[in-house]
């Protein structure tokens, strides 16, 4: 099904790998778990694969497998997003302390 | 419950057992307070302040009338004891280990006497620990006396007229007073070393930024945190080591003590003679005989150009703050013995039991 030269895909893969490393290299410990959860959500992109499989399935086997894949992938996407969001709830910026408060 | 505070009569004693601040707290807590006129004057507490705080000011003659509690600093004179009713609660420094006569007098009179120096050194009793509070003042004052007597400036200064080297100070005995002396000398800029026989002290000395002088002698520590006496061998070794090291120092402050025993002799005459003229020794242990052989308790002597300060009762020289701290210690003990103005002695209690030195024969 692939229509790109493998080497191009590898180039892309390499760039993505390097970027993945660089982009999170300064994460504070406090964010480790939320970041993990966010990344977990992102690999839910496998849902694209699930849709492609299920959407083009013509035999029962593929339909069944595709259906299962679709259920799992959707759960990953939806659950992953909400879990991350809840975790990050605690990072709401605290209001700036008012001046009088600081002085007392 | 009537508490009376006499003016101290011991020579040189400027402190007062209760200060107005504490008086007002006690007055609000069920006690009736009577203070002798001028009791706080020498420490900087005016009669007006006492009156404002809720005490009744009385003459000496009327003082002990109906007194249920007497709060003092120094032990009462024989006359005073005679004026106390049997069963009176007496709180003060009573020298239970070194003044058997005075204690006997109290016992005969049937006084319920509590000695501030016998407060056990347990966590719960820290607010009553007058030995600590007064030692704090003594340690601070010792450094000031030294700084005032030595011909040198404590801090290093680099000036257009050359550099002044910092004073090198040695503190021997790093208990409460010694630690405070270390801290104060360091504040003033001296280079401070310290020595103690208890092994736990090294870390404490270093926690104040001073260095520990190792004289190669290590003693024991009792459960109460006090040191035990050294063996004669160890003592000789310590003296020899000190004699070796002492010429390096401009200022020596000694605070070594063993409870109930005369102060250990640490600095022999020969060591003093090796010090540079103009150096100073402050012997905080002078009261119990002194750590230095040259010390004359209560006096400042010079020996070969070295000034040896044996002034006793250093806290009394800082009477304001010393009284303030002591007063809180006394009040804490009083509230422990008679909470809310009602005597409630619990002889099971460690503090009550250990602090009491005499009680009326058939008493509570």
């Amino acid at each position, binding site marked *: 099904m692939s229509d790109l030269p493998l080497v191009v895909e590898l180039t892309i893969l390499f760039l993505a790998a390097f970027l993945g490393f660089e982009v999170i290299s300064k994460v504070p410990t406090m964010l480790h778990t939320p970041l993990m959860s966010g990344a977990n959500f992102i*690999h839910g992109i496998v849902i694209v694969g699930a849709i492609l*499989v299920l959407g083009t399935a013509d035999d029962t086997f593929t339909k069944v497998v595709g259906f299962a894949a679709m259920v799992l992938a*959707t759960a990953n996407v939806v659950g992953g997003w909400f879990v991350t969001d809840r975790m990050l709830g605690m990072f709401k910026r605290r209001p700036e302390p008012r001046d009088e408060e*600081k002085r007392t | 419950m009537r508490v009376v505070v006499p003016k101290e009569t011991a020579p040189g004693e400027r402190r007062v057992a209760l200060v107005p601040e504490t008086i007002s707290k006690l007055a609000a807590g069920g006690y009736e307070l009577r203070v002798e006129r001028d009791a706080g004057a020498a420490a900087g507490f005016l009669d007006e302040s006492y009156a404002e705080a809720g005490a009744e000011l009385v003459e000496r003659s009327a003082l002990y009338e109906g007194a249920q509690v007497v709060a003092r600093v120094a032990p009462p004179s024989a006359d005073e004891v005679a004026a106390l009713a049997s069963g009176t609660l007496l709180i003060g420094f009573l020298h239970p280990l070194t003044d058997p006569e005075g204690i006997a007098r109290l016992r005969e009179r049937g006084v319920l006497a509590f000695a501030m120096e016998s407060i056990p050194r347990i966590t719960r009793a820290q607010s009553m620990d007058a030995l600590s509070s007064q030692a704090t003042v003594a340690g601070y004052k010792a450094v000031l006396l030294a700084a005032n007597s030595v011909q040198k400036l404590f801090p290093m200064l680099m000036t257009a007229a050359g550099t002044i080297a910092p004073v090198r100070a040695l503190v021997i005995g790093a208990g409460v007073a010694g630690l405070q002396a270390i801290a104060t000398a360091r504040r003033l800029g001296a280079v401070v070393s310290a020595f103690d026989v208890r092994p736990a002290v090294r870390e404490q000395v270093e926690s104040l930024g001073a260095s520990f002088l190792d004289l190669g002698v290590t003693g024991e520590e009792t459960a109460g945190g006090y040191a035990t006496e050294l063996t004669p061998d160890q003592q000789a070794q310590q003296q020899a080591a000190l004699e070796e090291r002492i010429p390096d120092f401009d200022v020596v402050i000694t605070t070594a003590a063993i409870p109930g025993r005369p102060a250990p002799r640490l600095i022999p005459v020969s060591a003093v003679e090796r010090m540079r003229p103009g150096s100073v020794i402050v012997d905080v242990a002078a009261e119990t005989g002194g750590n230095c052989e040259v010390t004359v308790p209560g006096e400042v002597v010079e020996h070969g150009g070295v000034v040896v300060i044996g002034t006793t009762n250093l806290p009394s020289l800082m009477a304001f703050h010393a009284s303030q701290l002591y007063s809180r210690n006394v009040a804490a003990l009083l509230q422990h013995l008679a909470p809310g103005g009602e005597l409630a002695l619990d002889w099971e209690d460690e503090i009550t039991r250990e602090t009491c030195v005499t009680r009326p024969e058939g008493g509570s």
Partner: protein
Amino acid sequence: MISDPSVIGLLYLVTIACFVVALRFLSSPRHARRGNWVGGAGMLVAIATTLAIDGIGNWALIVVAGVIGTVVGVVGARTVKMTAMPQMVAIFNGVGGGAAALVALAEWHHVVEPGAEETVSIVLSALIGSVSFAGSVVAFSKLQELIHGRPIVFPGQNVLNLLVLGGASAFGIAAIAGAEDEWVLYLVIGLALAFGVLFVLPIGGADMPVVISLLNALTGLAASATGFVLGSTVLIVSGMLVGAAGTLLTLLMAKAMNRSVANVLFGAFGQVQAGAGGARADDGRTVRATTPEDVAVQLAYARKVIIAPGYGMAVAQAQHDVRQLADLLEERGVEVKYAIHPVAGRMPGHMNVLLAEANVPYTQLFEMDEINPEFPQTDVVLVIGANDVTNPAARNDPSSPIYGMPILDVDKAASVVVLKRSMNPGFAGIDNELYLDPKTTMLFGDAKDSVLKLIAAIKAL
């Protein structure tokens, strides 16, 4: 219906951009939340685009599957307790891995004459996806206490695991080499599932986060491999982003626990060891160690911080650094006060001497009686080398030698961070139950070092 591959590609490129930005944001405390939203937007674009591709059918199945997945996801994520979050991450990660494996399986079945690239990708996707799925399920079960959280070890574990993994790989190679029978891939999947289970079983509950992060990275790789199967750039890139970020994150997490990844994964082999979470009280309450970075975030986002110094600050001679930390926080608008217990240290006024040396203004120092009423309104108390003076036993436990001593009520604050070197007791020689309080975390190490690390971490925020 879109049929132009350029349009599809461009839309997927938007998704990729969103994911990169999402990861970037997620690694900064200020933007983290926004990061999740950006990622969500990217995902929506990807899903919508894919659904719109010419030739997609089976709508009913897609919708039903989507609804089921959504319900599971929303309910799971919404109803779970905050403390159970890690297991939710584990399970959602697992289903992602499962999805990847299933897609691979479908393609295996579907593609008539797969080329080498496809076969390799399919095998990899199936293998990695299955390991991730099974491992995540075990991790979930452990954390959820469906099975025992303690490491499960047995003799020969090592050998068995190697055999299973070797088997899975061998069949995978066979498949690549041309064994086109369907059962070859089933064998790969089966053995991979077994390996996933075996692999996670011996790991203790405290180490689970590292393992979950590793499984997460694996799922990313599986997704990426699926991308190769389907020739989908968006899958390749997104999967690999997660694969790389997840790997780095795994390393960072292990480092934050002062362990190597190898130690986490294989530490239990051969020897049952105590959980890394620290000492454990008899009643099951544990001491929780923390890292300077975590404390830094707590402090930087606090409104009011109280510093309670003790003898340990003196021993470490950390006073100058403590003052600097306080200054730094004040600059950021945090209110900072010092709580001075009357007998902190080893001599009267010990803390005063040191803090004066460090030039802390007297007006910032508060006596115990003054400050005690303020603890309940305090976000974080930083206990620096103090022990006895914060021990609630003095209030609660009449049998304690320090019973009756007034203490600093640090345990009334919203959270407490204790800086000391070990679990050793202080002067009074007694344990401190404050350290078992769920609100308390311990930052172990010399106080000076720890404070310096805190300063650096706050500046890095």
